[in-house]
C-alpha cells in the first residue's frame, strides 16, 4: 500500500516537472489557433510589412510594420540608455562597492525590479512626460523618447543582477593572477574580469532587452499610442504590446481585428522565445 502511494506521488511529481513544457506549448498552440486565421484575409508578408494599421476600417488594413518599428525604436532607445548604465552598475556592485554599501545597492536594485509596471507608467506620466515636453518644446511629451527612458529602468534590474552574477562567477584566481603581476584593480577589471564574464554579460543584456520588448503597461501609458510609421524619437509611437493591450478590449471575438491581435501575440511570443533561448545558450556556454 505504501509502495503504491509513493508510486502515485512520484508520478505526480514527474507530471508537475514537465508542466512547464506543457504550458509553453499550450500558450503557443492557443496563440496559433486564434492568430493564424488572420492569414485568410492578409498574406503573412503583407501582415508583417504592411504600412497601415487600420483594423476597424472597412475593409480592415492589417499591416503591423508601424507597430514593429515602434517597438524597435523604443527598445533601441532603452538599450542605448540601459546597457552602459546597467553594466557599469553591475561592475560597481561586484568589484568596487564596499561590503555594506553593496548590500544596500543590491536591495535598491531588487526594489526597482519589484515596482509594478503600471506604477512606473503612472510616475512616468506625471514626472517624465511633462519634462520631455518642456525640454524639447513639443506639443505632447507622450513620445518614443519618454517610453525609452522609462523602459530603460525596467531593463536595468535584469541587466544588473545577471551581469553581476556573471562577474562573480569569474574564478578568483584570474583576479589574483592579474593583481600579482602588478595590474591595478581597474586594469584587472577591464582586461581580465570583463572579458572572462563577457558571455554572461551578453546574456544579461539580451534578457534585459527581452524584458523591454515585452513590457506593456508603462509603454502604453507614456508613448502616446499613435499607430503610424514612426519618423522621430520625439513623436508618439505605438508598440506591439500596447496595441494588444489597448485594442483587445474592443475587438469583437472572431473578427479580423481579434485574429490580427493574436497574430501580433505570435510575433511577440516568437521574439521572446528567440531572445530567451539565445541568452540561455550564452549562459550555458560559460559553464
Amino acid at each position, binding site marked *: 500500500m505504501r509502495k503504491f502511494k509513493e508510486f502515485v506521488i512520484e508520478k505526480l511529481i*514527474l507530471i508537475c516537472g514537465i508542466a512547464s513544457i506543457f504550458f509553453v506549448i499550450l500558450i503557443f498552440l492557443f496563440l496559433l489557433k486564434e492568430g493564424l486565421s488572420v492569414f485568410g484575409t492578409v498574406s503573412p508578408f503583407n501582415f508583417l510589412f504592411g504600412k497601415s494599421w487600420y483594423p476597424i476600417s472597412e475593409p480592415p488594413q492589417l499591416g503591423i510594420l508601424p507597430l514593429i518599428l515602434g517597438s524597435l525604436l523604443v527598445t533601441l532607445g532603452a538599450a542605448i540608455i540601459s546597457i552602459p548604465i546597467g553594466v557599469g552598475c553591475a561592475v560597481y556592485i561586484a568589484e568596487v562597492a564596499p561590503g555594506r554599501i553593496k548590500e544596500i545597492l543590491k536591495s535598491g536594485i531588487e526594489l526597482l525590479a519589484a*515596482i509594478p509596471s503600471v506604477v512606473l*507608467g503612472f510616475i512616468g506620466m506625471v514626472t517624465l512626460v511633462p519634462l520631455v515636453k518642456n525640454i524639447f518644446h513639443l506639443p505632447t511629451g507622450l513620445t518614443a523618447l519618454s517610453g525609452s527612458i522609462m523602459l530603460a529602468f525596467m531593463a536595468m534590474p535584469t541587466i544588473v543582477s545577471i551581469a553581476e552574477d556573471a562577474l562573480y562567477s569569474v574564478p578568483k584566481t584570474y583576479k589574483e593572477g592579474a593583481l600579482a603581476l602588478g595590474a591595478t584593480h581597474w586594469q584587472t577589471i577591464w582586461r581580465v574580469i570583463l572579458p572572462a564574464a563577457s558571455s554572461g554579460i551578453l546574456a544579461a543584456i539580451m534578457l534585459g532587452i527581452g524584458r523591454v520588448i515585452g513590457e506593456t503597461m508603462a509603454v502604453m501609458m507614456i508613448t502616446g499610442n499613435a499607430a503610424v510609421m514612426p519618423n522621430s524619437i520625439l513623436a508618439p509611437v505605438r508598440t506591439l504590446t500596447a496595441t494588444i493591450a489597448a485594442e483587445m478590449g474592443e475587438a469583437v471575438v472572431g473578427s479580423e481585428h481579434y485574429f490580427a491581435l493574436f497574430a501580433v501575440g505570435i510575433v511577440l511570443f516568437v521574439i521572446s522565445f528567440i531572445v530567451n533561448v539565445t541568452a540561455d545558450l550564452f549562459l550555458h556556454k560559460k559553464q
Partner: protein
Amino acid sequence: MRNPHRTQNIAFFFLLVTTLLIVVPVGLIVVIIIQKGLPAINWQFLSDVPRQGMRAGGIFPAIIGTVYLVSGAIIFALPIGLLAAIYLSEYSKDNPLNRIIKLAIVNLAGVPSVVYGLFGLALFVIFFKFGASILSGSLTLGIMILPIIITTSREALESVPQSFREVSLSLGASKWQTIRHIVLPNAVPGILTGTILGLGRAAGETAPILFTVAAFYLPQLPKSIFDQAMALPYHLYVISTQVPNVDEKIRYGTAFVLLALVLFMNLIAIIIRTKFRKKKKW
C-alpha cells in the same frame, strides 16, 4: 605615460555615476509616491467603494479583487511549482529532458505579460467558457508566476546538504519519506520566500488581467469565482488614463497602496531570507 592609478580613479568615478543614475531615480520614485500618496490614505479611502465615476470615494473593491486574484493564483501555482521543483532537485538526472524543462521555465518567465493575457483570454475565458472572471484571471496569473516559484523552491531544496538525504536513506527511509520529512522541512523558508515573491508579482501585474477578469467599475464586491472583479493595478491604469479629471490625490493614493502592498511582500521575503541564513546550522 598615462598614470594607471589616475585612470582607475576616473573609471571608478564613472562606475559610481552609473550606479547613482539607477539608485537615485528609484529613491525619488518611492519618495514622490509616499509624499503625495500618504496624505490621501485614510480609513474611508481604504474601505469605501469608488463614487462619482471613480472621482471620489475609496478603492475597497479593487483591494479585495486583488486579494482574491492573488490568492487564487497562489492556490494554483504553489502545488504545481513545488512539485516541479522537487522533480528538478531530487529526481531529474542530467539528461536532455531536464535541459528542455529548464529551457521551458526560462521561456515561461520571458513570455511578455500581455501575451499571458491573450492566452488566458483564448483558453480560460473563451475555450473553457469561464468568462471574464476571478477564476480565469487567477489561473492566468498562476501560470505566469510558476517560473518564480519553481526557481526559488528548487534553489531552496538544492541548498539542503546531500548528507541529510544520505543519513535518512541509510536509516531505511524511502526516497519520498526522505523528501517529505527531511528535505522539505529544511527548505520551507526558501519556498516561502519564493511564494511571497510570486504573490508580489501577481499583485502588481496588469496586462494579464486586462481581458481575463478586470472590471472597469464595479462598486459591489464579487460573490463567486465566476464574477468579474476590480483590481488595484488595473484601477490605477484606468484612473490615470481613461477617466479625465480624477483628483491627483486619488491617483497617488492608489499608486501608494499598490506600491506599499508589493514592497511589503518583498520586504517580508527579504526578512525571511536573512533570518534563515543566520539560523542555518550547516
